[in-house]
């Protein structure tokens, strides 16, 4: 098992984690633990949201940048960690 998969597996075993998606900077899926349909939709929307947030943050202060995005929703919590060449999205069930 590669180092990459090992890390994913460890993250997956955290309490309440329902899904992990790793995409590259262009939005292409590198790894996903949920089915492909859900992955596609999540990636498409969350990537857009992340980009938009990033732009907004930069426009407010050009020396600033987005480092972590946490969304609390009624059903779950979505954590998005954008990086230079990839974005990790983790969906956590709230219960």
């Amino acid at each position, binding site marked *: 098992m590669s180092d990459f998969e090992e*890390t994913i597996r460890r993250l997956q075993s955290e309490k*309440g984690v329902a899904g992990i998606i790793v995409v590259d900077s262009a939005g*292409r899926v590198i790894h996903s633990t949920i089915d492909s349909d859900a992955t596609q939709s999540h990636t498409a929307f969350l990537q857009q949201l992340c980009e938009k947030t990033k732009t907004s943050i930069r426009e407010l202060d050009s020396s600033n940048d987005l480092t972590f995005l946490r969304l609390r929703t009624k059903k779950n919590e979505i954590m998005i960690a954008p990086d230079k060449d990839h974005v990790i999205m983790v969906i956590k069930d709230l219960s």
Partner: protein
Amino acid sequence: MQNAEQRRLELERKKQRLAAMKDQRRKEEESRVQNLLRTNENGTAQNGASHRQTLSSEQMEEILREVGISAEPTIREESPAPPRGAHAENHLNPMSASASNPRISSLLSVDLEFSTVQTASTDNKDSAIYSKGTQTDDERISVGEFSLGSQEFDYDDDMIMPVDHGQFRGRAHSHDQDSPLPYNEEIAKLLGQAKHVDKALQRQDTEEKKSTHVQTVQPLSEEERNRLTLDPEFLDSFNRSCKVIGRALNEDIDIFINYTKDPYEKAVASDDLLHLAQVYYDETWTAKRLVTGMAFSEHHPDLLAVSYGPCDVPNEPPGVIVVWNTKSKRITAEFIVYCQSEIQSVAFARFHAHLLLAGCESGQICVWDNRLTSRKLPINRSPLTTQAHTQPVSCLAVVGTKNAHNFVSLSRDGRICSWNVDNLTQPVDGKELMTKEGKPASATRMSFPIGEMQTFVVGTDTGEILAASRNGADPAVIKTDVCYKGHSGTLTGIEFHRASGVVDFSHLFISSSHDWTIKLWSTKDANLKFSFESHPDLVLDVAWSPVHPAVFASIDADGNIFVWNLNEDVEGPVARLRAGAEGDTVYMNKLIWSADGKHVFVGDDEGRVHMYDVRESLYVLKSEEWNRFARVLSDMKESNEEAEKYNM
């Protein structure tokens, strides 16, 4: 000819006015651009969107010049005296930008493709086009097309300078709304067909963006993926992000916690556990009378006898008893009886379905028979002798079995009399209750354990609880066996545990007092005791649920009704409710549970009896409640023993 002359003059005037307007507009634009530049210098010079916007305009102009088209639109020729702006920034005028757009469509599209635009501003542009496109009036469209350019500018301004937000927003609006029609017409003429081209261009532009977006969704090849997942640099940053996420996942803080919320508020506000169902009240008989006692009939569990104290109205009997039918939806008084003395306590004769007993202020005991519906006065009353009571009879109880039962009465001076219900001419026996020190006790309340007729407990004025047995050797005195000390105020309520089940709790009793506390005791175990101190005022009565082993209810002088479930919480009530309207304190005096444990009845000082429905969880119970309660009690005992050990 004169007409023509006039027209010429008019035209001239119009032209002048137009020129003045344009002049003003130009000045506004100038100052705005200057502002913009100033803020750009103030640190946002590298701002992506605005930079691109200004650059592209400048570039456009350059390109235009190269191609041989003047960046300044032909409007210039028509306007008589346009003040040529001293600033080069003047050319950033949105009008010129939008006017020149169509002519260099091919070049512009190349330019757009070159900049990877996936920004918030592009989205806004799209939506602006959409809303303008819905307008049908040609003139308005052209105006829209024009103001679109300035809006773009304004939008960027907003993004760059949130401080100046209001100011620019205001300007943008004036641009949109106050544009004089002739001026717009000119521009519309100029733009003419161009606007269609412009729109088409922009549509094409968005389509391009969409297609690039679709491209990004295309999956990675296996090879690329492998390469990426083995790339040490990628792995490094990936692991770092994962660690952050891991920490975020494990952060166990409820960010929505509300510290200002009163944990009891929910139970109080919602009718969760207690719900006022009915108020029993009679204008003639019960108004303004204090509820002094309540008792349920064993034969007819629907019937509740309530005794009322005196009222101020002259010629009204000082003592009234009303028997209410609690099952009826209507407020129905089944019987109303009265006597010429204040009534302190009331009881149904347990083994005589028709007899109603009452203890009077005078010390007499009165009996009514409900078969004699026309007779409102007692059919029988005890004599006022020293053998019986000479002080107010505060408590009545019928104890024993069907074939061997006694009717026991307690008066304030601590005298306890046993009677034969059929013969009230003299008591079977009458004894004085003595404290351990040998003094007469001033008794307030009395309670017998379930199924027990000899031993009992009595609460006193001083707060002591005396446990004694009726059949002592001494014919005139009952000696106290055990004295429970703990309360510091007059005892207002005392009751033995009532619910019977798999575990026997009949040794438990509970007491309420003027010292604001409720205490739990056991006749078996001195270490088993507990004090409940949640009431904010004098506690006036307390009563066990007849069905749930761990539930009791209590009332205080502040108008609060508490329901406790010791299996859930020993520190505080599971439900609390304040009787009466907001800000109005109802003085609660007496409390009783219905035999099925579904309702709590509370009597106040205005002659009302309030019936509260109790939630199902307090009377539909699982068998484990008994064992749970046993565990709760043993925990209480254990902690008491430990505390004692440390105090030694």
